[in-house]
């Protein structure tokens, strides 16, 4: 899926929130640079000296066993957590609270106690989008996520796999330039996983940059253009998917790729 040449990296045409004069140019927010980032909780160091850059175009997977620090890394990038040391830069600028034009889907989907449509609409309302535009956008993402038949259902009555698709649709409706996903298919059966991966491919093909964590090796092989391999809070490798799976450098990555039980 590596088609990075397709996507303009500096300027993208994104409709502005509540902008009735038509689309306007929003500067691209990538690259995302994580510089010398460490995260402590109490006396424990959970993330240790992370350094990496995320560029537009590729499907990036943060891979590693449970407890490697994948979720924390995503939360730091998204802006929900602040690093103890180091900085997170978007196009060279330090992030504020949660920067715009990037959204996140969590491992456990959080559904508002309302319908599927209202869940998706909630994020659009927050952006101050007008009603007609909201309706168009909702119809579009419902279709993309294959949720049309469920549009009027109470979101919490859906299965977890369906809820996760609603969460992805809700995030994607905001037309983010970057979408972070934290193990979106963890604990799902193969058919639900396939449905979610299908949605993710569509999101990727639309030009949204995806950064997703997983501990599932086959899933990483199916989706990734680029791999960030985390182990015990440290970034051991960043390379293209082909290089990583064929010639992992570190012994930990070799063990992981060969399917040994790494922790």
């Amino acid at each position, binding site marked *: 899926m590596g088609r990075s040449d397709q996507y303009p990296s500096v300027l993208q045409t994104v409709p502005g929130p509540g902008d009735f004069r038509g689309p306007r140019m929003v500067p691209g927010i990538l690259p995302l640079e994580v510089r010398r980032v460490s995260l402590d909780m109490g006396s424990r160091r959970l993330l240790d000296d992370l350094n990496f850059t995320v560029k537009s175009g590729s499907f990036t997977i943060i891979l590693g066993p449970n407890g490697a620090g994948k979720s924390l890394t995503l*939360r730091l990038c*998204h802006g*929900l957590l602040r690093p103890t040391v180091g900085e997170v830069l978007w196009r060279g600028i330090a992030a504020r*609270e*949660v920067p*715009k034009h990037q*959204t*996140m889907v*969590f491992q456990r989907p*959080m559904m*508002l*106690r*309302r319908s599927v449509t209202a869940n998706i609409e*909630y*994020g659009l309302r*927050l*952006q101050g989008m007008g009603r007609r535009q909201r309706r168009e956008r909702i119809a579009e993402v419902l279709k993309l996520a294959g949720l049309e038949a469920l549009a009027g259902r109470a979101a*919490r009555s859906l299965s977890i796999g369906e809820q996760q698709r609603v969460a992805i649709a*809700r995030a994607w409706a*905001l037309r983010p330039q970057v979408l972070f996903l934290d193990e979106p298919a963890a604990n799902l059966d193969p058919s639900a996983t396939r449905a979610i991966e299908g949605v993710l491919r569509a999101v990727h093909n639309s030009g949204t940059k995806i950064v997703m964590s997983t501990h599932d090796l086959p899933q990483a092989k199916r989706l990734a253009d680029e791999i960030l391999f985390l182990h015990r809070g440290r970034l051991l490798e960043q390379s293209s998917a082909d290089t990583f799976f064929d010639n992992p450098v570190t012994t930990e990555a070799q063990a992981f790729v060969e399917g040994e039980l790494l922790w």
Partner: protein
Amino acid sequence: MSDVESALLSAVRLVFTLDRDLAEIIGLSMRVSLSAVAVAALIGVPLGGALALLRFPGRKTVIVLLNAFMGLPPVVVGLAVYLMLSRLGPMGVFGLLYSPAAMIIAQSVLVTPIVAALSRQVFVDFWSEYEDQLRSLGAGRGRAILTLAWDARSSLVPPVLAGFGRATAEVGAVMIVGGNIDHVTRVMTTTIALETSKGNLAMAMGLGIVLVLLSLAVNASVFIASEAAAKSGR
């Protein structure tokens, strides 16, 4: 037949024939307590949300005070409101003392801490579930409080009903600021106190029956509401 038994009989008769005086007293009680609870909900629910979600200096002090105020003695609240509303008090010019308005004020003061403290806990629980997602979507704290209030609506019913139970059951505050004036500020609890001391047990017991039924109804509603809340939680 003993005095108590005959009084009980006439009490039941009063209730089921909807005696005019009795109905008037029940009506005023409801008007005062429902108004007080409405005021308490309008202040207490947003206050509970703010205390759960916002961080500001003195927040912990306010939480401790609110929890302490949940058990405020009604007579003390009555006295404080009396001093405020009396001719020499800061709000004396409005001439509200010994009116239903004064009773509504006193009960609002009594009930607001209950609604605020109990709904704060509801907001805390919901926020722990919603925080990451709402922050991620870019909702400010004010917006988040509104969102939680809507999503937690069935869980916020029990706090409000608890406030209503407290309002209908108290005597001290309405007695002091209302004065228990016949046809003006006489409510169920003050009537029971008065009629009992006069020896008119039938009227007192009739009102007692109504109060107990009301309390039962409130608690049944709390139960049903929390069942519904638990159901909508998943």
